[in-house]
């Protein structure tokens, strides 16, 4: 399945993403690594290729009442409700830490109206460490009866174009899997100006409590159960849009990561796996490196999309 590579140095993890050199292709998924500092009790934040922020909004957001997490077989459901400190606070209180650690950041953000997305993008100043803005398009559009922004090609095109118009920072569209055809949505985002994609966000689902604590629990499904859906999204979008894809959804070990690269991902994000094993990210980075050496792969680029050949 792999292309032959020459005699170059094997196992070079660095990638080029949106014009920047990134030391490895592994990021956390938004909302699964707090504000960054929390994990440093276990490993250095510099371990990450890129830190992806918790979803940020114009103003602080309190989120949903508990319970907020639910267990499923090989997956979990969350209804955190986008609790966050807001963009301003993030940049005054948490961003300095990443500056100190010289760790690149992707800023994940959201809104409940187009205007809010645009306002968020305006609030974020370019900085050499900010690789991109990641638009969480799974949010409900309160002006359209609460239907998520990411579901209609037309709406996606509009909102991406408006955000692109107000920022110099590259814009990544993060798409929801609850669509008829993710390629159609990706194309619309690309035409709107998206510089890249993160595929995919959680799947909207529901669980029932036979013990009544909360009869119906709604939320986003993540973890290994989501992987085949995520992998299909990456594979399908890869050939149709000429911009980088960051793969996310159910990646639990380096083998999953390799699957996403070969399907077409330039980089990957690890979310739920960190809750099961907080060392998942460093282990995946090491696993990719070892795999590349074993199979004599010199760079991630050499295998990106090779399943299409």
């Amino acid at each position, binding site marked *: 399945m792999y292309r032959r590579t020459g005699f170059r140095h094997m196992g070079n993890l660095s990638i080029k993403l949106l014009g920047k050199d990134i030391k490895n292709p592994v990021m956390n998924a938004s*909302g699964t690594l*707090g504000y960054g500092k929390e994990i440093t009790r*276990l490993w250095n934040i510099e371990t990450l290729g890129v830190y992806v922020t918790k979803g940020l909004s114009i103003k602080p957001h*309190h989120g949903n009442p508990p319970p907020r997490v639910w*267990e499923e077989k*090989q997956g*979990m459901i969350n209804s*955190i409700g986008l609790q966050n400190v807001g963009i301003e606070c993030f940049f005054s209180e948490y961003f300095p830490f990443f500056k100190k650690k010289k760790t690149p950041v992707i800023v994940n953000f959201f809104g409940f109206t187009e205007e809010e997305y645009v306002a968020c993008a305006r609030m974020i100043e370019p900085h050499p460490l900010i690789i991109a803005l990641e638009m969480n398009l799974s949010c409900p559009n309160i002006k359209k009866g609460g239907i998520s922004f990411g579901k209609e090609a037309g709406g996606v095109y509009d909102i991406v174009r408006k955000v692109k118009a107000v920022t110099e920072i590259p814009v990544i569209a993060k798409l929801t899997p609850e669509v008829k055809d993710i390629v159609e949505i990706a194309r619309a985002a690309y035409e709107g100006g998206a510089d890249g994609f993160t595929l995919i966000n959680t799947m909207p689902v529901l669980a029932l409590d036979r013990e009544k604590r909360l009869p119906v629990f709604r939320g986003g499904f993540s973890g290994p159960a989501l992987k085949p859906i995520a992998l299909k999204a990456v594979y399908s979008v890869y050939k149709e849009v000429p911009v980088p894809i960051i793969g996310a959804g159910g990646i639990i070990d380096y083998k999953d990561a390799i699957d996403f690269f070969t399907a077409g991902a330039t980089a990957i994000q690890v979310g739920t796996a960190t*809750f*099961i094993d907080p060392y998942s990210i460093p282990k995946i980075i090491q696993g990719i490196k070892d795999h590349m050496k074993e199979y004599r792969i010199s760079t991630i680029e050499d295998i990106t999309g090779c399943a299409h050949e």
Partner: protein
Amino acid sequence: MDDVQGIVVENSRVVTGYYLITIRLVKSFGKVLPGQFVMLRIPRNTVFLRRPFSIYNYKTRLLSIMYKVVGIGTEALSTLHRDEKVYVLGPLGRGFKKSARRKAILIAGGIGIAGLHLLAKELRQRAVIYFGCESKKEVALLYDLREEMNIYVSTMDGTYGYKGTVVDLLKNRLETIPYNKMEIYACGPEPMLKALKNIIGDIRISCQILVEERMACGLGLCFGCVKKTMDEKEPYKRLCTEGPVFDIWEISL
């Protein structure tokens, strides 16, 4: 703090439905504070997420947890054999804040005793325990504490000690307590904590409670484990990092 491998040394039933597991860690935890907890990875892939448990006891790499079987995870836990491997992330969270001089009342409801055990062991004669449970058989959960401390027991069915809730028992005796020299530590089901909050509403007594919520990471990463607070500016606080011990007046019960 680390994710430490451990080997099950013993996993025995205390009384029907309740177990005490002892795990030998391959690496030391360092200092453990009463009220802190661990995230246990239950082997054999029966459950997906880790489960939080209070540190019942910890001494030179021997960790123990007292637990009640309430669902699939604790059910699976109860079937672990000696020598099976587990992974233990900890010690986590903020423990109880102890004042050096004051006396303490420890109030536990059922398996809530597991969250207060280490504290009781440290406070010894400085503390008295109020323990409430359903029925006589659960008095066994007091285990080694029975010999070491002053304990008042209530059971719902009256088969042992005072008949009624532990908070009612405490209320009845409240006059006899010099509460300006005391502080309260409590752990148990929410209705117990609510009742407690009610009866101490008038008196100025310091009261710390250990609360529970479903968790995913235990590390402050997911914001999944919040409790509602009384603070409008920060209405939800993470139990795993800002807790699991809170001042009773901080939390909306």
